[in-house]
C-alpha cells in the first residue's frame, strides 16, 4: 500500500477518533522507517514502516494500524485496532484493552496477554459468491422496486421525463452521466481528503447513489411501457426490479457485459441530470443548417 492509498484508511481512523471525542492534534502518525516507541501522545497511528514497543517499555493510549508492521513486545496500556498491515504480539507482549482486527495479518503468541480479542471473521465461502451475491441482488431488486413504487405513486411524470431522455437521447445521457459521475466522484473524494468535509462527502455520495438508482428506475419505467400496466406505481416498481435483474445479467456477459451495465447506469444518471431530476423534458437546441 502506498502512502497515498493509505489516506482513505487514515480518514476512517480520524472519523473514529472524532466520534470518540479524541483531539486529532494528539495523533502521532508513523509512515516510514523503523522506530521503537517508549512514549506516545493519546493516539498512535501506524501507516507504514515498522513500529515496535520494546520489551521494557509501556505506552499509554490508543493504537491504530492501517499499514506497515507493529510489534508489541512490551505493554500497550489501552486498545489496539488493526485495519490493515500486520501486528505481532510475542509472548512478552501485553495489551490491556481490546485488540480488534478488522483486516490484515495478526499473530498473537500463546503467552501474550490481551485484555480482549475481537477478529472480524469473513467466511471465505460467502465471500466467493453464492448466498451473499443472491442476497445483494435481492436487496437491489427490493430497493429499486420500492423506490419505483414510491416515485410512481407520487411523481410518475418525473419518471416519464427521465425515461424519455434515455431512450430519445441515449448519447447525450450517457456522455453526461459518465462525465458528471466521474467528476462528482472525484469531488466527493477530494472533499473527504480535507477531513473537515467528510460529512459533506458522505452525504454527497449518498445523493449520487440515490440519483443513479433514480435513473435506473426511470429506465425500467420506460422499458416496461409496452406491458400496458395502467397504474404508474406498479409499472415503476416492476421496471425498477427488472433493471436490477437486467444489470446483473448484463454483468455476467464476459468482456463487454460489465461495460454495458455501466453505460446503462450512467445513461440513467445522465438523463436524471439533463432533465433536472425529471422536472423538465430534455430538448436539445435547434440549430438551423442545410436541409
Amino acid at each position, binding site marked *: 500500500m*502506498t*502512502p*497515498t492509498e493509505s*489516506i482513505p484508511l487514515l480518514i476512517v481512523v480520524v472519523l473514529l477518533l472524532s466520534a470518540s471525542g479524541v483531539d486529532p492534534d494528539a495523533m502521532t*502518525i508513523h*509512515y*516510514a522507517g523503523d522506530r521503537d516507541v517508549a512514549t506516545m501522545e493519546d493516539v498512535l497511528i501506524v501507516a*507504514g514502516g515498522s513500529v515496535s514497543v520494546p520489551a521494557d517499555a509501556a505506552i499509554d493510549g490508543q493504537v491504530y494500524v492501517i499499514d506497515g508492521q507493529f510489534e508489541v513486545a512490551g505493554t500497550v496500556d489501552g486498545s489496539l485496532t488493526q485495519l490493515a498491515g500486520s501486528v505481532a504480539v510475542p509472548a512478552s507482549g501485553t495489551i490491556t484493552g481490546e485488540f480488534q482486527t478488522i483486516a490484515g495479518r495478526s499473530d498473537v503468541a500463546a503467552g501474550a496477554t490481551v485484555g480482549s480479542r475481537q477478529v472480524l471473521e469473513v467466511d471465505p465461502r460467502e465471500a466467493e459468491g453464492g448466498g451473499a451475491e443472491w442476497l445483494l441482488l435481492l436487496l437491489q431488486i427490493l430497493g429499486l422496486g420500492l423506490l419505483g413504487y414510491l416515485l410512481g405513486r407520487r411523481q410518475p411524470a418525473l419518471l416519464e421525463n427521465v425515461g424519455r431522455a434515455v431512450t430519445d*437521447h441515449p*448519447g*447525450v445521457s450517457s*456522455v*453526461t452521466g*459518465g*462525465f458528471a459521475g466521474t*467528476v462528482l466522484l*472525484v*469531488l466527493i473524494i*477530494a472533499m473527504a*481528503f*480535507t477531513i473537515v468535509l467528510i460529512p459533506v462527502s458522505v452525504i454527497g455520495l449518498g445523493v449520487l447513489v440515490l440519483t443513479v438508482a433514480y435513473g435506473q428506475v426511470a429506465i425500467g419505467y420506460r422499458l416496461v411501457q409496452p406491458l400496458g400496466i395502467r397504474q404508474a406505481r406498479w409499472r415503476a416498481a416492476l421496471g425498477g426490479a427488472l433493471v436490477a435483474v437486467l444489470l446483473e445479467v448484463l454483468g455476467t456477459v464476459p468482456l463487454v457485459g460489465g461495460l454495458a451495465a455501466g453505460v446503462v447506469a450512467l445513461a440513467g444518471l445522465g438523463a436524471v441530470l*439533463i432533465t433536472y431530476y425529471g422536472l423538465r423534458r430534455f430538448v*436539445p*437546441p435547434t*440549430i*438551423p*443548417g*442545410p436541409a
Partner: protein
Amino acid sequence: MVGYGLYVAFMAAGYYYNVTFVQLGLLDLGTRHVGLSRTGVSWWMAGLALLTVVVAIATGVAVDRRGLGRDLHAKLRLLFGVVFVQVLLVAIAPHIRSVAGFGTWIVVAAIALGVGVPVSFGLTVDLVPAPDRGYVAAAITAAAYFLANVYPLDWRIETFSAAMLAAMVPGLVVLGWLASGRSGLVDALADQHERFGVGRFCHPEPVGLRSRTFASLLVLTFAVFFVDSLGFLRIVEEPILVVSSWGSPAFGDHLLLAVVHVIGAVVAGVFYRNFRKRTIYLWVFGLFALSHLLYTLDIQLGQLFPTLGGAPPVVNPATYAVAVSVYTTLNFALWPDLSTPDTIGTHTAVGVGVSGWLATFMSTALALRLQEADVGLLSHLNLVNAMALLVFVGLLVAWYVGNARHHGAGGEAA
C-alpha cells in the same frame, strides 16, 4: 466529408504548432540557445501576443471589408502564404543564437500567426455546417492534443522543429495544390457558405461585435485561457507535479493523458451541440477550480505529512486535461458560430486573438514574473484557483439573476 477532413487537418495542425512549437519551443530556444532569462523570454512572448492580436484584427477587418470571407480560393491562397512562412520559421528557429535574431523571429512569427487566425477560422463558413461545428471542433481538439501529448516527449526546439517540418512540408504541398486554383474540389466547396455560413448564434439576427453577447463571451473566454495558462505554466515548472504526467519519461503516462484529452473533447462536442453556452462555461471553470483544488490539496497534504510527498495521483492532470479539452473545443466552435460569412474575419480575429492569444501570453508572462518574484507554488495555485472559483460563482449568480429577470418579465407581462 472531404471539407470536414480538410478543415480538421488544417486546424489541428495549426493548433499543434501553437501548443508545442510556439508555447514550449520558444521558451527552450530563448533560454538555452539565446541565453535570455525566463523573465526576458516572458516579455518577448507578451510582445508576440500583442503583435499577433494587432495583426489578426487588422487582417480580420481587411478580410471582411474586401469580402474575402465569401472567397474560399482567396482564403486558401492566404493560408498557403502563412504556412509557407511558418515552415521557414520552423526550419530557422534551432539555428538562432542572438537576441536580435530571436526578436526578428518573434516579429515574423507574430505576423504569420496574426494573418493565420482569421483566414483559417474563416474556412469554417465554407466547410462546416453550423449543426456539426461542435463535433468538428471536438475532432480538431482531440487530434491536436492527442498528438501533442504523445509526440514529441522531448521539449527541445530541435525536436519540435524536426517534428513540425516532417508534418508541415507535405501539408504545404497539398495546400499549394488546393490554393493553385486548379482543384475542382475547391470549386465544389466554394459556394457552401451560402447554405450554412451563418453561425448558430446568429439566428434570427446576426451577433454584432459590440453586442453584450459577444463582449461577455470574449471576457469569459479570456478568463478561461488566462486561468489555464497561469496555472499550467507553474505546474509544468515543478518537476514533482509533472513527473507522473507531462514530464514523465514513461510513454504510457503521456498516452493516458492523450486519451483523456480525446475523451474530454468528445464530451465537449456533445455538450456544445446539446446544451447552452453557459452550461459549458460552468463546466470549464468548475473543472479548472476542481483541478487546482486537487493540486493544492496534494501540496498541503505533503506539507502536513512530509512522508506523503510524491507525485500527485493521475486524477489531477487528467482533470486538468479534460478542462483544457472542453474549452478548446468551445473556442474552435464558438467564434464561427457568432459570425456570418461577412463578419467571420473580424469576429474570429477579435475572439481568438483577444481571448486566446492575448490571454495566454499575458498570463504566461505573469506566471514567469511571479516565479521570478519567488511567489510560492501553493500561493500561486491558490491564486489561480481563486480566479476560477470567482468566475464560476459569478456565472452561477449571473445565471440566477438572468432567470429571475426572465421570470419577472414574464410575470409582469402576464
